[in-house]
């Protein structure tokens, strides 16, 4: 059972584990934010598309075989990800990882049900393992990126897959001797429409919570991956608290609505940051983390409860969740990059105004005016520029040094304002999308099929 939980946690961690490494990958492969977002999109997309067919195979050929095969594919693709030397091969390997992951995760629920004796006991373990994996992913990825490399995030998964896969061999042996496809009760194979739709809408919020917050911290506010990892650990910690609080709310619909409101409120808070201060991201992240725990667990349990055919419905929930993440990323990334481009222009204008109106001598202004464009050029059109190097070395004259230091602070402030403002529309839109999940949550009882 532990090995299965680890396998589920590992696969679902991969949905987000690479988030903190994205800026590093983005710089190494000299791509755009849209380009690098496909490292997330490709994995989540194939996971979403393959989950239901994989579940059907698990029922047809035996969950042990499908899980073992899935984990082997996942391990091989992880190795390929770690060895990728260009963005295309990384994105392709991530897509294959998603295929393997889909087979592993959906078949795992079937195996857990057999191992624990009932759906009722298996579902919380399966949901919990996935939630913990997804929540811890960014922090683990950040630590590995900072202390080793982004490639290590994928390479380290290979031995973990082997360890988690070893116990599956027994299930494969059993299924080779005897496997009969379980009979389906009429009507039980249809997915729970309302719960899955709500799950997709709420999951679009996960994309914003994890992907955009990290890009804001590292690219916008120029935190190191380790510092950003520490900051975004707020979400998994809050998720753990949320999971405990959730047990006190018996009604799944109330729990899901509470979670959606908290997640939406947290995202709106991130879209309304009044200053570029890391500490101000903490309260919204707490709300978002609490909300994630409540809404995802409530909706997944609702989608699976009493429907039999565990793997199939697990497939539907995985499909809905990750399709939601994909739609979130596809919807938010262009809005965010367009906004970043506008804000970059505004920041350059306001920075120029500050430089023109500063008390520096003409010579010092001209000198800076010649150096700054090079820094802007280096950062490309769709990035928040870094300007620190244009001020080095600082002059010896104390008065001019003080003026230049003040100017650097003022210009950096403008850039941080631009970065923060550039993210606002995406966060607010994500908040709105999550809020829309209240409609299917409200209709859940009526729409239950």
């Amino acid at each position, binding site marked *: 059972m532990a090995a299965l939980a680890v396998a589920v946690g590992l696969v679902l961690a991969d949905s987000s584990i690479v988030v903190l490494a994205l800026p590093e990958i983005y710089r190494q492969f000299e791509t755009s934010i849209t380009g690098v977002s496909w490292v997330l999109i490709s994995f989540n997309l194939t996971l979403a598309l393959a989950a239901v067919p994989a579940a059907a195979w698990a029922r047809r050929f035996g969950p042990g075989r499908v899980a073992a095969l899935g984990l082997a594919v996942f391990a091989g693709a992880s190795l390929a990800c770690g060895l990728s030397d260009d963005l295309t091969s990384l994105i392709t390997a991530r897509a294959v990882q998603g295929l393997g992951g889909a087979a592993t995760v959906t078949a795992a629920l079937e195996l857990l049900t057999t191992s624990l004796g009932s759906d009722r006991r298996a579902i919380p373990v399966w949901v919990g393992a996935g939630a913990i994996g997804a929540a811890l992913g960014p922090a683990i990825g950040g630590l590995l990126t900072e202390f080793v490399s982004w490639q290590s995030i994928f390479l380290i998964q290979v031995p973990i897959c082997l360890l988690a896969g070893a116990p599956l061999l027994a299930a494969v042996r059993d299924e080779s001797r005897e496997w009969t496809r379980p009979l389906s009760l009429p009507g039980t194979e249809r997915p729970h429409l309302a719960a899955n739709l709500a799950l997709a809408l709420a999951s679009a919020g996960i994309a914003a919570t994890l992907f955009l917050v990290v890009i804001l911290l590292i690219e916008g506010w120029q935190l190191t991956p380790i510092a950003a990892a520490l900051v975004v650990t707020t979400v998994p910690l809050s998720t753990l608290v949320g999971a405990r609080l959730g047990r006190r709310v018996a009604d799944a619909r109330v729990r899901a609505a509470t979670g959606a*409101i908290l997640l939406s409120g947290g995202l709106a808070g991130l879209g309304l940051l009044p200053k*570029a201060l890391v500490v101000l991201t903490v309260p919204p992240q707490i709300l978002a983390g609490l909300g994630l725990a409540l809404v995802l667990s409530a909706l997944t349990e609702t989608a699976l409860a009493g429907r039999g055919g565990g793997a199939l419905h697990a497939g539907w929930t995985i499909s809905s969740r990750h399709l939601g993440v994909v739609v979130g990323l596809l919807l938010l990334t262009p809005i965010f990059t367009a906004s970043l481009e506008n804000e970059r222009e505004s920041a350059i204008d*306001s920075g120029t*105004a500050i430089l023109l109106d500063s008390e520096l001598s003409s010579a010092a202004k001209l000198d800076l005016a010649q150096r700054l464009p090079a820094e802007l050029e280096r950062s490309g059109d769709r990035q928040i520029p870094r300007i620190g190097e244009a001020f080095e070395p600082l002059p010896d004259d104390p008065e001019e040094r003080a003026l230049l230091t003040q100017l650097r602070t003022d210009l950096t402030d*403008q850039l941080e304002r631009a970065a923060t403002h550039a993210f606002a529309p995406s966060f607010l839109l994500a908040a709105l999308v999550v809020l829309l999940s209240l409609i299917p949550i409200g209709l859940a009882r009526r729409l239950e099929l």
Partner: protein
Amino acid sequence: MKPILLATVAALALIGVYLAAGGATYGPAEVQDPCEPRVWNEPDGLDQLGQQLALSGIDGAACELGVTREALARALADDQSREEFAAEQGISDEEFENAVRSGLMRMIDDAEEAGEIGGIVALGLRALARVVPAQEAFDLLQDARPLIERGIGAGEGLGVFDENLDGGLSDGLSDGLDGLGEDLDQLDRGPRRFERDLNEAIDGAQSTVEEFLEQLER
């Protein structure tokens, strides 16, 4: 329903606090409309005065072109950026030149209003701004120091005499400069010739007043 209520209160409280702290408006500072008058910082020394005048000039040109002062300042960095900017904004050479001359006029107006140059010098400089060759106009917009050096030098002397003559000198010179401008338009004389005539007019006026003062002393 209590958890839903608590979640709603928590979410609204966070949104309310962030909005109250300025979350809706936190972004890069907006740049000022170049057509609006800008605060004149009391310049300390020739370098600062030159900068202040150049900023006024760029404001005037930017206002004429309908762009921000900041975008124009970046465009004026060198010939290549100027050409790129003009192509991007669809500005012809003639429009650019006219805008730069408007900028020089704004520069002189602002300097006069701030009391940095006297009325007579301003008149002379305005006439000069109308005829100075395009490249020199571009250069003056970025570095107004040569203009100030000449303007202040002439203005210090002439301003005193003008006061003694109850403004007679400025009126006379104004008429003379207008006449020079008209001559120039009609006769299509070169700008350097006009500049020389202008200088001669100022020098002539200065020596006339000097002679007048010497006579008074005697």
